[in-house]
């Protein structure tokens, strides 16, 4: 019988990005004084995950003509009318409070205008200068300040603890706890809690080129599927057009070269070193992320590529010294990695960046399962089919705080800790131990095969034929993984065991992405169907919902509830101009 360490707490938070850390702080403020709070994370507190990697900034309407209403309309239009409108509204409304909290209480210091007010800039898809930032390293400022606040508080901390299963009660009516692997020892730990926030982050790393932190493998959504929860918008994967391309063997490949390079006049060149963006869009390189990603992908399909199969970004015509002065961080990063961004050509490729889909929640982060709350990139709905740059960290920090408040209130009416279903617990343990019962073989080639399959067949441009093929390829890889073993002689800090578990999560979620992609027979936001180019009837907009029963996935289409505004309408007064952003 497998030994399981046990840990009981009142509130359990999984993840230490913007959502998890804010949840810990808010739970402490709202819960009764003797409440036990535990925060668990797959890496080190505040260091793994993606909030720290935010470059652009934080969208929030702070006056000067901008308003919560305008932010809301941009979010709904950017999401192509698919967002859950109540969630989008709360995001825009509460971002105002949260940004003040970040500055005044957490200690972040954001860039200022000469008069001491906060500097705000406009990203693509915004009709106001709205993005608060700290240079181009906003995420570091937010996470470092949140991290030091949480480290100093009496919260139980479980670092390098990987969540592997949501364990319900025997009757399945509520969540009893979460099973972890203590990665440092390789042992199991069951944490029982009255309320659990799942804020593990998304991160579509099942694509050949991807931007997220290396620890991100969609474990949260894979656990949610197994627990029978509804997942929405699973087809919606956002690609960033300019990921660094340096070969398959280096972890540098896929990492983001920032949006601002194109905004400042950077040019994209194909393999013959000719500009091509104006063949696709009158805005050229300044077109939106999805348009530029598709244009690069189209050049790649025509084999108009660089040595490693991408295209080039060129900045040198702007003057190398000027580029060095304007983008010091990017130039230095490229130089450290052996590339001359200021004066030479750097190879780039579209790269999977953010996952709009996630668990169905309400605007209070509650799920269909009592005791389980979800916030941040694990939750679906706030962005619909496309996330605006700057809305990601606003979403995670707003809803992390909401979750902390709601859990702190809910535990007041909850009784004792719940008993976990022994069969569900054993099933999760068996699942995690499975690779240790098979003959050891390399895991890495299967991960590469999955990334190729998703990139080729369920990527930037999709067709029914391609996705059907993708479904078969994913299933074959998934089956093959079950035959691949990991040596069991030392499970302490055994990265290869975790590579296997990572790939298990990625295979499961990849199947869901592909099925949802087949179910959406139109092109909306991030989802582009070459066989259904039309965006479909906006008034009859639907979102996909996918659930797992046993090992079978079922997809359905639910109509979007236009709870605040219908397509074609606006909540802005008639006198309001279309945009407040000065034309470039």
């Amino acid at each position, binding site marked *: 019988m497998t030994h399981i360490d046990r840990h009981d707490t009142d509130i359990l938070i999984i993840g230490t990005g913007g959502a998890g850390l804010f949840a810990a702080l808010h739970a402490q403020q709202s819960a009764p004084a003797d409440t036990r709070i535990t925060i668990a994370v797959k*890496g*080190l*507190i505040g*260091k*793994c*995950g993606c909030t*720290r*990697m935010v470059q652009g900034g934080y969208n929030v309407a702070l006056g000067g003509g901008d308003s919560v209403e305008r932010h809301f309309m941009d979010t709904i239009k950017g999401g192509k009318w698919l967002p859950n409108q109540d969630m989008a509204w709360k995001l825009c409304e509460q971002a105002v*409070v*949260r940004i*003040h*909290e970040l500055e*005044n*209480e957490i*200690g972040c*210091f954001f*860039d*200022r*205008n*000469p*008069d*001491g*007010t*906060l500097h705000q800039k406009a990203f693509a898809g915004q009709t106001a200068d709205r993005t608060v930032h700290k240079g181009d*390293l906003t995420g*570091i*400022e937010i996470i*470092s*300040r949140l*991290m*030091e*606040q949480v*480290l*100093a508080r009496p919260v139980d901390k479980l670092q390098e603890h990987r969540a592997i299963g949501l364990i319900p009660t025997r009757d399945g009516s509520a969540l009893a706890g979460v099973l972890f692997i203590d990665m*440092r020892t390789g042992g199991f730990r069951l944490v029982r809690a009255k309320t659990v926030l799942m804020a593990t982050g998304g991160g579509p790393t099942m694509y050949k080129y991807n931007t997220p*932190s*290396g620890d991100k493998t969609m474990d949260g959504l894979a656990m949610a599927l197994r627990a029978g929860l509804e997942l929405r918008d699973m087809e919606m994967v956002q690609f960033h057009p300019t990921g660094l391309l*340096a*070969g398959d*063997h*280096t*972890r*540098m490949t896929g*990492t*983001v070269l920032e949006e601002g390079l194109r905004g400042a006049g950077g040019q994209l060149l194909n393999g013959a070193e000719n500009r091509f963006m104006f063949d696709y869009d009158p805005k050229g390189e300044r077109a939106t992320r999805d348009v530029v990603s598709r244009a690069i992908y189209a050049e790649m399909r025509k084999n108009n590529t660089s040595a490693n199969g991408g295209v080039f970004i060129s900045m040198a015509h702007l003057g190398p010294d000027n580029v060095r002065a304007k983008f010091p961080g990017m130039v230095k*990063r490229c130089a*450290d*990695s*052996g590339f001359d961004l200021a004066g030479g050509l750097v190879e780039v490729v579209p790269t999977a960046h953010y996952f709009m889909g996630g668990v169905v929640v309400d605007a209070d982060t509650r799920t269909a399962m009592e005791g389980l709350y979800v916030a941040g990139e694990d939750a679906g709905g706030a962005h619909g089919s496309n996330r605006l740059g700057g809305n990601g960290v606003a979403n995670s920090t707003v809803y992390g705080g909401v979750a902390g408040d709601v859990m702190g209130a809910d535990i007041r009416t909850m009784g004792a800790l719940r008993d976990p279903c022994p069969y569900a617990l054993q099933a999760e343990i068996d699942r995690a131990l499975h690779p240790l019962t098979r003959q050891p073989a*390399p*895991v*890495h080639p299967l991960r590469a095969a999955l990334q190729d399959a998703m990139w080729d067949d369920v990527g930037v441009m999709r067709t029914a034929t391609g996705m059907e093929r993708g479904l078969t390829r994913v299933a074959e890889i998934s089956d093959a993984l079950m035959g691949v073993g990991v*040596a069991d*002689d*030392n499970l*302490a*800090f*055994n*990265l*290869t065991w975790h590579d296997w578990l990572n790939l298990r999560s990625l295979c499961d979620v990849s199947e869901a992405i592909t099925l949802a992609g087949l179910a959406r027979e139109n092109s909306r936001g991030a989802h582009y169907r070459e066989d259904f180019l039309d965006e479909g009837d906006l008034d009859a907009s639907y979102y996909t919902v996918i659930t797992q029963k046993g090992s079978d996935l079922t997809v359905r289409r639910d109509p979007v509830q236009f709870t605040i505004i219908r397509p074609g309408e606006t909540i802005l007064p008639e006198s309001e101009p279309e945009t407040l952003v000065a034309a470039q």
Partner: protein
Amino acid sequence: MTRTRDMLQVTVQRGEAGKTRMQRFDVPARENQTVLDVVSWIQQEADPTLSYRFACRVGMCGSCAMMVNGVPRWTCRTHVSRVANDGRLDIAPLRNLPVIKDLATDMDPFFDKWVAAEARHHPTRGRLEEFDPITPDNPERAEANLGIECINCGICYAACDTVAGNPDYLGPAALQRAWTLLNDSRDADRPTILAAVSGKGGCHNCHSMGSCAQYCPNELNPMRAIAGLKRETVKAALRGKRDA
């Protein structure tokens, strides 16, 4: 001119604290290759039991710092061609921290000292109040900004000989953060910060050897911040005597 080598000769420290050994691997040399890529290749292709830590891959998280040919570095941002010594690399866990296994260290002592240095914001305003209208040219703010890009990677802590010799010493990163806060006009509790950094493991242990500034990948200068703390703690002590 040096011949391009096909293989790198890599020596990696293995094992747990007190039971370490060195192990040799031959790793294919590539054109675009970081030290993290070398470590990953070993785990993926040669020895699946190798333990190490990384996250962001781009020098933002500070999880992957290791000793590379005796020098603390971010492995994700260190190109092999810049550090390989005649095709040889020696890779070991970050100095001055307990080893969990192989190349992964326990960073808790580093962060415990961050907390002990009172290195967190003490609010003067709440979330329902306006932002403090601090102008960009405010001299105090300019001083605070000098250290703000620290990503707590632990490289200065590993480079510091004072940390090596005195386990109580708070170290350059935590002290630099304290200096930033001391210059932040929004902080409500500057006396507590000063008290935290002037105690037994505090700023006066620093011998100004400057390894922190020399090795910081972000080109920050914790030694300068610590010198500031020394001045302020002395001034505060003198004020205390005068007021007594």
